[in-house]
């Protein structure tokens, strides 16, 4: 794919991008593909905001006494970094961008079941985001994204209510998106598209949506009660007023643990699609991977207490949560083995999407295995509240979920934009991100075991070397993220025009032009093959 030549400007055929022009056609669109792009731009903005907070944090931690800001400010930085990244970047990312764009295409439908709800979801997300940005500007929040009481309800004098309202509102965006996906997947599959012929990305979206609709409402009621306590000083969570601070933690983690599966399952779905395409083989053990996704969603609701092993909760509760937390690791392990086995006797090529997918497998394996240290009661006692936790969840959420998102963007970019991007730069960015990421977060495992607690604006000097390494890594990581931003924008005007199926992938989304027409398909396709029909016999229609 040569990137030096500029394609001659020919008038593109009618597609969803050029069907209508003008801001109204975008802000009042009901087309799932345009809504996906609205989300794409918004989450990118929030990623930059959240990333800026992270950069400031890492600069602060270069010096043991703190290099940049007062502790009060640092506390606001890490709180907003968490809130913005989790609620406004990670949770929407793959579902709201790639899911919205691809779910109707992959099931052979013309749109999602409820297009107006879909647009409403985006507006709700934006309103929630505005509340949170207001909170950030009007003084910030310093409670940590976990809002533990009674600090958040009775002691903090920062914008707790505003952020609680912002998170409450944004939760509905998640709920409506999940609802839309479940109904679409159940009711709008093309003829011949049975459940076990669905792409694994759809199974992943389905499992994610189950968590979204069952878990998010509990977060809603939790922040609602928190806001009421903050405003009216009633004692639900505050012991001084007769309440129970652990009740808050139980309610909060009942959502927030499944939430991490909302963040990782979609990335796993993306990885399945990419591995299959770039090895030209059906994912090994397809059905088992389907069941694993649903198993992760279900088991994910049963383990929340592992965030509370050192709170003084009963040792028996600890035992049960520990056991279940180990069990939830098994389906994820199975998936890693299945992906790896897919490569066996495949025909492997290394374009950028594949590099991201392989990077995901490596980093998710490491991050997931470090979860065992935390499911294990005796070691969690030592590691809880330290940088080990920070390293663990960043391995999964950045090394896992963000790599999955970027891999997905690189895989489906030709379909979404109708353009190709320069693979050389993409591969380079992938490597820079991989290296920068590991340099940023691996030292934090060591810091954590040595005992450096998290959320510290300054620290004892013996931890400085590791902190400086981490900051150095973060600068490299930042550069790595910038590069795709540049060439994706560049490609929209100067990239080579993409054909319908530039990667030779299976899946209904590749059977329609790039970019697709507004109605997705001229005629609704009829499906006669299993998913990932890459083999010679299947490709020729003999199977």
């Amino acid at each position: 794919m040569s990137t030096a030549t500029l394609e001659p400007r020919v008038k593109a055929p009618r597609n969803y991008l050029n069907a209508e022009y003008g801001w109204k056609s975008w802000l009042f669109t009901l087309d799932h593909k345009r809504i996906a792009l609205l989300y794409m731009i918004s989450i990118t903005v929030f990623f930059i905001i959240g990333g800026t907070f992270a950069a400031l944090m890492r600069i602060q931690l270069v010096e043991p006494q703190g290099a940049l800001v007062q502790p009060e400010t640092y506390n606001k930085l890490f709180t907003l970094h968490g809130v913005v990244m989790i609620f406004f970047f990670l949770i929407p990312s793959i579902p709201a961008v790639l899911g919205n764009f691809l779910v109707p295409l992959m099931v052979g439908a013309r749109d999602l079941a409820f297009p107006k709800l879909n647009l409403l979801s985006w507006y709700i997300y934006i309103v929630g985001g505005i509340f949170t940005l207001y909170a950030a500007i009007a003084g910030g929040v310093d409670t940590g994204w976990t809002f533990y009481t009674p600090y958040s309800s009775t002691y903090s004098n920062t914008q707790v209510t505003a952020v609680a309202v912002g998170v409450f509102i944004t939760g509905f965006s998640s709920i409506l998106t999940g609802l839309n996906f479940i109904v679409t997947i159940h009711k709008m599959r093309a003829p011949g598209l049975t459940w076990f012929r669905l792409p694994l990305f759809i199974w992943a979206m389905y499992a994610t949506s189950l968590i979204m609709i069952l878990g998010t409402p509990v977060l809603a009621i939790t922040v609602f009660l928190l806001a009421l306590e903050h405003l009216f000083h009633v004692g639900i969570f505050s012991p001084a007023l007769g309440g129970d601070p652990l009740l808050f933690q139980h309610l909060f983690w009942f959502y927030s643990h499944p939430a991490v599966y909302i963040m990782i399952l979609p990335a796993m779905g993306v990885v399945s699609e990419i591995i299959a395409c770039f090895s030209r083989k059906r994912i090994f053990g397809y059905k088992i991977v389907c069941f694993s996704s649903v198993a992760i969603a279900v088991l994910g609701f049963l383990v929340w207490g592992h965030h509370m092993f050192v709170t003084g909760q009963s040792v028996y509760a600890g035992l049960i949560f520990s056991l279940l937390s180990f069990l939830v690791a098994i389906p994820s392990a199975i998936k890693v083995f299945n992906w790896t086995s897919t490569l066996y006797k495949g025909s492997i090529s290394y374009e950028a999407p594949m590099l991201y997918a392989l990077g995901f497998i490596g980093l998710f394996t490491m991050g997931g295995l470090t979860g065992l240290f935390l499911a294990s009661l005796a070691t969690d006692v030592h590691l809880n509240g330290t940088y080990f936790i920070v390293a663990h969840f960043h391995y999964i959420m950045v090394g896992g979920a963000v790599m999955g998102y970027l891999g997905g963007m690189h895989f489906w970019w030709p379909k979404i934009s109708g353009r190709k991007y320069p693979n050389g730069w993409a591969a380079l960015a992938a490597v820079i991100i991989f290296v920068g990421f590991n340099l940023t977060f691996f030292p934090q495992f060591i810091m954590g075991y040595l005992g450096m607690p998290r959320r510290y604006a300054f620290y004892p000097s013996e931890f400085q070397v590791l902190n400086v390494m981490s900051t150095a890594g973060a600068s490299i990581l930042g550069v790595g993220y910038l590069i795709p931003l540049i060439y994706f924008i560049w490609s929209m005007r100067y990239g080579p025009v993409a054909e319908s199926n530039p990667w030779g992938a299976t899946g209904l989304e590749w059977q329609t032009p790039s970019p697709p027409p507004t109605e997705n398909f001229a005629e609704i396709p009829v499906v006669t093959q299993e998913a990932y029909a890459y083999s010679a016999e299947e490709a020729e229609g003999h199977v």
Partner: protein
Amino acid sequence: MQALPFQPDQASSIARSVDHLYYFLTLITLFFTVLIFSIIFYFMIKYRRRSPNERPKAIEGNVPLEVLWTAIPTMIVAVIFVWSASLYFQNAEPPQGSMEIFVTGKQWMWKAEHPEGQREINELHVPLGRPVKLTMTSEDVIHDFFVPAFRVKKDVLPGRYTSMWFEATKLGTFHLFCAQYCGAYHAGMIGSVIVMEPDDYERWLEGSEQGVTMEAAGEKLFSENGCGNCHVSDGKGQGPSLLGVYGNPVHLSNGQTLNADDVYIRESIVSPTAKIVAGYKPVMPSFQGQLSEEQIMDLVAYVRSLGKQAGKQQEEGKK
């Protein structure tokens, strides 16, 4: 043993066993990471696409293989779970005869009170080789008492007591960190645990400022606040007698029976109507806000001493 630069001092009786489990976990992580990375690298090279039209044969799956790689990780995590849980269980209850120290956390300092009356701020002196039980509460928000060298931590909650124990096995000064975010100077809520030879510790106890013992302070508070007006020792007052109460079962008006521990004593002071002793009316006022957490701990120590006294009296009565 200060073995590797990647771990803190092993300064408590459990540090070594926790580290052993940690090494095992690290080994498993390393093993599987290297395994997956190498297999992927190997496959990437061996099965790289050699011609643009290559179409590999379909491989559906292999049930025996799936079973194998489900069973093996399950067995490995089962081993980890059992190992870790038994370690955790062993360390859950403090050994009999542990020395007790009372700790209060508040934004942003640690206060420790030895039963003999010594008070410390941001420091905790303990003797080598003796199990120490910390009974802790917070005056405001949630904190966490973390000593990396001992491999122990426990959240410190407002409104209740939590406890943890350790036995220091190495002399020296070790970091004490607050490990639960608690506001602006969370990072500054740090201190030291100082482990001394038992003789040196005794000397330190005697040498430091002669405070009143916690029991004596509690007795003073008991009389200053008029507790004895209702809690008459023959049980005929408005409130039950406190002789021999501590550590024994209490029968409540709602039919329940519970053991009178630190938590119950504290709750009876700050939230008296929550549990009423059978045969008495709910007329005790709450002392929440009137007594600091440290004063409540002094009262708890005093009520404990009443329990021991009654025990002694019973023994003597039997003789």
